[in-house]
């Protein structure tokens, strides 16, 4: 029976990876990931917190290894591990409180003892699930949380520039538009041209929107008051891995001293550092279609065409991060990291 369950677990993880890879998940990947791990915690048999940590680590590692560039799932795994640790420790503390009196000696040594996570605590499963449910609700409301802060950052008659199509940015701008009048300039972000969709959606909700080609970013930047962008990942040093075209945008903003505000839910915060400027292990390259057409025929066998998805933006180009918990400077990211994740889980 256990074997069957194990098989189901493997299968679930595999399906999840495939779904993410082939873009079959339409709502939020992170919420799906939390659901998956909740299933695992409920269905797989484990007795001690240590077992559970091991199971989650193994599966998390598998997922993270299979999608090295989609760090948010890895970050979710780290958060879940941290939650398990926290719950275990607090339950253990309660238990000890009940059974024994607190002594100074115990307080000093308790940290060391609790690290093995080997005590069997029956209520642990329930507590973890409760906490994960809370976490899920938090994730669901994350875009709202960020959008709530829009009024503090967007003022009347400002000109805002953005690039690509980030749902967080869209919600943020729409929220601000409810009681402020401002203008948005959207860079198209070719060859995928995601900017077109964003411009369309903004225009539909009566925001004055201008769509520009990427080549016009520098020319227009002098008139822009603020750059507001989304990102795929926030690196441990505060740099960004964001949609291709963000780096030139940030450079132009730096040149004209325009503040760059990055909207980043906390699950996008990754403990990874940029390991290579050669972009290879950092970036994702998709089909060259769009840069060059397959219908061009024979010339394709004579050239190399690269179509990267991401840009690395160094932290010095970022003025402010806005997460669901508020605004942070890039230099503060290291602190957030140690708050969110347990140091043992940085490497899955």
């Amino acid at each position, binding site marked *: 029976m256990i074997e069957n369950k194990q*098989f189901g677990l493997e299968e679930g993880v595999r399906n999840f990876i495939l779904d993410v890879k*082939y873009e079959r998940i339409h709502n939020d990947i992170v919420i799906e990931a939390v659901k998956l791990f909740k299933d695992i915690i409920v269905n797989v048999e484990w007795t001690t917190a240590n077992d559970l940590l091991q199971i989650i680590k193994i599966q998390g590692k598998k997922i993270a290894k299979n999608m090295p560039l989609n760090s948010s799932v890895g970050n979710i795994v780290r958060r879940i591990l941290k939650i398990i640790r926290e719950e275990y420790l607090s339950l253990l503390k309660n238990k000890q409180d009940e059974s024994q009196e607190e002594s100074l000696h115990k307080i000093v040594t308790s940290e060391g003892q609790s690290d093995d996570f080997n005590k069997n605590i029956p209520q642990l499963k329930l507590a973890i699930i409760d906490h994960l449910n809370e976490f899920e609700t938090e994730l669901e409301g994350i875009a709202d949380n960020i959008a709530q802060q829009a009024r503090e950052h967007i003022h009347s008659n400002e000109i805002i520039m953005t690039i690509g199509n980030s749902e967080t940015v869209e919600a943020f701008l729409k929220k601000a538009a409810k009681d402020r009048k401002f203008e948005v300039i959207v860079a198209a972000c070719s060859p995928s041209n995601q900017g077109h969709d964003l411009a369309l959606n903004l225009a539909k909700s009566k925001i004055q929107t201008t769509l520009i080609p990427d080549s016009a970013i520098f020319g227009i930047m002098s008139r822009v008051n603020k750059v507001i962008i989304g990102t795929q990942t926030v690196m441990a040093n505060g740099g960004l891995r964001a949609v291709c075209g963000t780096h030139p945008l940030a450079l132009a903003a730096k040149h004209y001293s325009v503040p760059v505000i990055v909207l980043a839910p906390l699950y996008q915060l990754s403990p990874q550092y940029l390991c290579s400027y050669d972009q290879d*292990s950092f970036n994702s390259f998709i*089909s060259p279609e769009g840069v060059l057409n397959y219908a061009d025929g024979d010339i*394709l066998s004579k050239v190399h065409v690269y179509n990267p998805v991401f840009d690395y933006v160094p932290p010095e180009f970022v003025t402010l991060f806005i997460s669901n918990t508020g605004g942070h400077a890039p230099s503060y990211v290291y602190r957030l990291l140690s708050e969110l994740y347990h140091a043992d889980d940085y490497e899955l």
Partner: protein
Amino acid sequence: MHKKTGRSVVDSVTKEDVIQAVLIADSYNDDLFPAYPVPCLLPIVNLPLLDYTLQCLSSAHVQEVIIFCSAHADSLKEYLKGKCWGRMSINVVVSDGCRSLGDAMRDLDSKALIRGDFILLTGNLIGNLKVLPALEKHKKIQKTDKGLAMTLLYKECGKKSRTEDDEVFLAIDKNTSQLLLHQRCSREASKINLPVEKLLEHKSMDIRCDLMDTRVAICSLSVPPLFSDNFDYQTRDDFVRGLLMDEEILASSVYTYILPPTEYAASVTSWQNYHSISHDIIHRWTYPLVPDMFLDQYYSYRRNNIYVQDNVTLAQGCSLVEDVVIGGESDVGENTVIQSSIIGKNCKISEKSSIINSHILNRVTIEKGCKIDYCVIGEGCIIRNGAQLTSCIIGPGVVIGRDKVVENMRLQSERPLGEDEKENYGPKAFVYQSEETEAGSDSDSDIYPIAKKYYGLKLEARADDSDTCSESEGHISDKESLLQEDTNVFFSEVVDSLLRGYEDKLPCDNLVLEVNSSRYAYNVTLNEVNYYVVRAILTLQDEFKWDGIAAKLKYFMPLLVNYIRNEEAMLDSLNAIEDVAEVHSDFEAVSLKLIHLLYNKDILSEDAILKWYNEPRMENEESKRLRKVVEPFIKWLKEADDEESESE
């Protein structure tokens, strides 16, 4: 246990909604031999072809796949055992007797496994296409055209050099995208042949040759029964051709669907397109089906399209130039150059070798100083020091000896049955004998496909016909070739009957009957009959001594009397004589005697001979020469004429 739950989910959905795909796992030919025993498990960029196909179907939301196989069923099942494909269920149907796609479809019809529109494809598909939009379009057309049988999927590839088998000309109705003409082109027939009715029926049409056949088709429920009704359909091309020819009778039509530019699909059918498709994979056109995106395949992707797996040892001074894939646990020695090549897992490549444009499968050992260009090397091969291989396809387990130079070969490790071939290339290397070549080695037409197979990976640069010959010339010669198709067959049949008649001394009346029946079978005009009969008689045994010809003429005289009755026929026979003389110079000498004889026998009249002499069809050397030869006879004719008139 899990499988059961999967099945029940499928059952609970209404059955019509299930998207079925029929995957033909056999190629029914040995074009992709002998590098890997099972064609659809042949690795391309280090993963079996079938992997790509199933991944593609799984990501295209196909729910049920029926894998149809005849040979290699066990290895296929073995391979499928350990795999899971998400929410897709896979059924393997084994049918031993199948020799072609047609057989498979007929079997499918009798087994009644199909419930609605289905996707028909081979196990060699590589692509990231989304099948759903094509399926939707198929259903939409079905509403307006009840006879819709098949929608063929094509990918725009522009002007791309490719093999002849892949060249295809299509005529497509511009508004409805109905297929009107489907013609594979070869070097010989460079023109297309479009019936006038089609031009009249359809207002506007596109004629395209920039499309690549993906060999994926959406089929209606009516397709398997159509195959059953027409048992001569063997391949999909037969089917399409049959439907286009007998559109009214079968009440079925074929449509096309051109993939949007973001989607890629291609099928491996020959070594040449194996090479070009692997190039496309390395260049990421198939994204997300690229080496570093597959499950449990951890490649690091570097500049210049270089993919390297874990635990690869790259020695000092070795250079990976571009477009290189190296599988896990492989070693590359010092100063070795690898370019545009794929190296499998656990390969050992020693120092100072060069590997260019090649595909090396798993566990291959290549010793020092080898040169490998445009080759496919099967699993577990050993290439000894200093060997040089060009354009070779090498089966599993072959050992190539030291310093051997091998070009344009297909080699296998086992000695072919009943042949005492010497080990020319190494201790375990024998020339691969294709079954097809053995079966049809005596007939001339088979020489061509055998030769073609030795092309290997390299795509021969194709002489561009349209540039080399001027337009008008091409037009005329083509018209002739079209006309001649039937008459050529007619001619060869006439030669056959005459030869048989002459040898068996059959009465000439019977021969007349035979020639006449051939004439009606091939719809040949009377003029041509006259011409070809004379020509056939003259060239019957390719000997042009006067005695032989005289004997033959004597025998065939009744035949000539039967056909050559008026002046026009006489001119035809004279033209035939002229043409034979043009080809066979020996004949020229006897032509004088021949014409004289025919004149004496009253087959040719004086007027006809003079007319032929004075009005040559073409002003060229040969005709002048011939007329010089027959000049004395003409002179004599004229003199005789004058004398007659004088005497009167």
